[in-house]
């Protein structure tokens, strides 16, 4: 069914936002916890250098998520936006403020102003994922009615929702710390590698515990979802757990190779586990499903086509961005080169399949040429009309 395909596309772009954009939020968490100006200088610098060239690109996926959700499933979208208006507002404020704080901090020279802007960046990096998590919690526990007409405070302040909010923050911190371990290792910085290894282990344990807590809470707050998570979605739940344990084991053994992919795969498995458990219901507790939530088939077909076109356009751009980053060709204020923590993520999604840095140039060149050709064809078609 075409609506199932669009549902898959929606979940895929949510996954991309989580594993790429989520790590940016996590960077804010570690910036916040890095301590005083002097002690936190080195870690803050690694975080900043890793995030700077990619954070705007990573947040493209949020726009993608919202537009697909809105266009393909307008009834469900309206219900979620109305019921969870307040946390969505707060998440939006967090996104706006963290971007502003991050961009402005680089430009001001006084230490005081830098502290204020840095704190704005770091705090709002926590707000955004927390409130997004509470919204997902509200959806998962069936607190979003199909015919929502007003905002509800109790919908997103249940124990499950608040725990989901905390889980989102924990998962963001976990991804960021794991990516930063990989980045520090690549730079040969042993001190920072050990620093972020400790944090990645702690965040991994916290995120794992929070996942189990949410699962336990679901037992009472949405038993149907719970039984499907431990039923047909069980393989994905187990996969998520195995990925988390493998990351912890590799970090403890001091072998950071591949941990980034494993950590991202673990988070992706949690998201897809939720999707599989809920399928085909969009809003649990109602009869709103993928197939009856709104858009006519023509719209859904258009979305699938547009998604393919967007992949052709966005894929090569991301490939170029990540490979330039991987080869340290993007700016830095010293010789070390601004390499990126949010490295080529050979995650479950084919979208960000990056060529490895060393063999990037032919692949990237092909991608750029392909992009230019497609662009020229599209233009020619438009002119012909």
């Amino acid at each position, binding site marked *: 069914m075409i609506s199932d395909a669009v549902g898959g596309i929606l979940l895929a772009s949510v996954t991309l936002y989580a594993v790429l954009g989520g790590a940016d939020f996590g960077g804010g968490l570690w910036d916040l916890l890095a301590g005083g100006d002097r002690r936190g200088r080195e870690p803050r610098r690694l975080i900043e250098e890793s995030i*700077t*060239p990619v954070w705007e690109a990573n947040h493209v996926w949020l726009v993608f998520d919202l537009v697909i959700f809105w266009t393909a499933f307008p009834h469900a979208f309206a219900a979620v*936006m*109305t019921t969870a*208006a307040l946390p969505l*507002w707060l998440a939006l*404020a967090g996104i*706006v*403020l963290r971007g*502003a704080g991050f961009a*402005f901090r*680089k*430009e*001001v*020279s006084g230490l005081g102003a830098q502290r204020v802007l840095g704190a704005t960046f770091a705090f709002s990096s926590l707000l955004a994922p927390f409130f997004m998590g509470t919204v997902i919690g509200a959806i998962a526990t069936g607190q979003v009615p199909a015919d929502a*007409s*007003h*905002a509800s405070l109790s919908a997103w302040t249940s124990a499950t929702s608040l725990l989901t909010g905390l889980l989102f923050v924990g998962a963001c911190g976990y991804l960021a710390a794991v990516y930063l371990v990989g980045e520090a290792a690549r730079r040969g910085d042993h001190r920072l590698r050990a620093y972020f290894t400790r944090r990645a282990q702690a965040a991994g344990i916290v995120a794992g515990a929070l996942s189990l807590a949410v699962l336990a809470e679901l037992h009472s707050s949405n038993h149907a979802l719970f039984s499907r998570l431990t039923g047909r979605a069980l393989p994905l739940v187990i996969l998520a757990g195995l990925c988390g344990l493998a990351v912890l084991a590799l970090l403890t053994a001091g072998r950071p190779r591949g941990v980034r992919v494993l950590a991202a795969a673990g988070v992706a498995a949690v998201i897809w586990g939720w999707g599989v458990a809920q399928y085909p219901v969009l809003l649990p507790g109602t009869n709103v499903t993928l197939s009856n939530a709104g858009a006519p088939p023509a719209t859904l077909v258009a979305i699938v086509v547009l998604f393919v076109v967007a992949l052709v356009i966005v894929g090569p751009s991301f490939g170029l961005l990540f490979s330039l980053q991987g080869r340290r*060709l*993007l*700016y*830095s*204020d010293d010789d070390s*080169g601004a390499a990126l923590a949010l490295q080529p993520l050979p995650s479950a999604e084919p979208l960000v399949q990056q060529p490895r840095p060393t063999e990037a140039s032919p692949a990237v060149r092909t991608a750029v040429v392909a992009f230019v050709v497609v662009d020229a064809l599209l233009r020619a078609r438009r002119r012909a009309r």
Partner: protein
Amino acid sequence: MLGAVSGLAAITAMECGWVVTEVGRQPWVVYKLLTTTAAATTNGGVIASLTFVIVLYAVLGAATIGILRILARRWRRGGPEPEVPYGPPPALQEQSVRGVE
């Protein structure tokens, strides 16, 4: 002088064009399909959230202007160029400057 005014004029023209399309379409939000009244949220707190957005963006706007002024002052003072985000590495920059000369 004219150059400085044209920057402002470009933004004014863009904003005016936007106002014309938005106001000109009323009372429709999607022409002949959906009225603005029907599309509006049924939630309360519209004034509160509008106020919140205005305050937030006023603060951000003021900060942006302030930071642009800081950058202009730093540039006028001379001294080492601050790093250009996403710019080429220093070695390449020097090459291109020499190339221009």
